[in-house]
């Protein structure tokens, strides 16, 4: 009995240590966020607390791509009809989905969660604004917007990432060697500025995206990458998050010069589909992190690329 109890103590102790340190760390983080929210309520601006290098490295060791693909497979399993309503109702309740604007309101019609996630909207649910030249391509929350300064873009206020790392080297147009910075290389007309806007799509949001303006898409660049969460809390915590994650960058031109739209994937929403690009395959094990794959939509027979009108359907995010 004594020997057995000694063995048990040896076996259990590391678990206690792990639980104790993990719980302590989580508690400390909770206390920090509570303290910050109190200060914010008092109107005191708090500089973002960025993750340490080791924290980012640790997060990167989590097999997010594998988890995402497993999640995707699970959600492609056809649910029995009797189970559909309770499963989707739980999702609707958890993430505040407005089913009244869905093209198909009957929950039994969606064979699995993946299909439900890709649901379309009623045609009249989202009127496209005529009076503004740039519209929102999707439903979501505005994380940040403004001018691009010093080749740095902000994922949330005060947390930046490199424009060049995000878009990759500028090879899709004639190289402009006389221009010094990457930012200047993108600006085609004198007196123009470079602007950016970041829209976060929450799990309950409509996850298709549309053309934000009248433009011609000339080039696609697919960056296979990690699939870390991109929720605003993580975007505030991990610098360069959008440069680590899997993404599809569409670049081209509009009436004022350079225009680009980038779809950034996340753990649950790992794959991105572009309707006019059947060759694009995202969150696929055949691509390794850190590389990128280019495709030009400009050919000898088509010098305009893909012509998109404001509000046209462009693509969608998928589960896993």
């Amino acid at each position, binding site marked *: 009995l004594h020997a057995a109890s000694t063995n048990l103590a040896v076996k259990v102790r590391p678990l206690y240590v792990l639980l104790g340190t993990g719980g302590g760390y989580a508690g400390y983080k909770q206390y920090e966020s509570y303290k910050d929210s109190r200060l914010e309520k008092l109107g005191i601006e708090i500089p973002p607390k960025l993750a340490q290098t080791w924290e980012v490295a640790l997060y990167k060791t989590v097999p997010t791509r594998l988890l995402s693909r497993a999640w995707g497979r699970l959600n492609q399993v056809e649910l029995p009809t009797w189970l559909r309503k309770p499963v989707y109702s739980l999702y609707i309740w958890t993430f505040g989905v407005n089913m009244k604007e869905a093209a198909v309101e009957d929950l039994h019609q969606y064979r699995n969660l993946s299909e439900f996630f890709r649901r379309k909207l009623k045609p009249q649910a989202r009127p496209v604004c005529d009076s503004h030249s*740039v519209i929102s*391509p999707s439903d*979501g929350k505005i994380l940040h917007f403004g001018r691009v300064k010093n080749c740095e873009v902000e994922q949330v*206020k005060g947390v930046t990432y490199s424009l060049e790392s995000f878009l990759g080297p500028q090879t899709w147009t004639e190289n402009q060697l006389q221009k010094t910075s990457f930012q200047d290389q993108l600006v085609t007309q004198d007196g123009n500025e470079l*602007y*950016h806007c970041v*829209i976060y799509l929450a799990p309950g949001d409509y996850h298709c995206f549309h053309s934000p303006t009248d433009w011609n898409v000339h080039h696609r660049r697919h960056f296979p990458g990690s699939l870390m969460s991109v929720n605003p809390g993580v975007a505030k915590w991990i610098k360069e998050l959008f440069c680590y994650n899997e993404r599809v960058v569409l670049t081209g031109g509009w009436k004022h010069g350079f225009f680009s*739209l980038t779809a950034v994937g*996340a753990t649950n929403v790992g794959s991105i589909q572009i309707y006019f690009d059947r060759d694009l395959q995202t969150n696929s094990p055949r691509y390794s992190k850190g590389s990128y794959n280019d495709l030009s939509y400009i050919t000898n027979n088509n010098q305009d690329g893909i012509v998109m009108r404001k509000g046209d359907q462009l693509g969608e995010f998928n589960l896993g």
Partner: protein
Amino acid sequence: STIVLIFEAPKDFNFNLKPGQKIHFGEAVGSL
């Protein structure tokens, strides 16, 4: 998931947005 728009525009381009606001597809982001 996230959508990032990066584009060139004249200096008088104005955003019709507030940080943290909820937006729907089709609503104005900005114009000249």
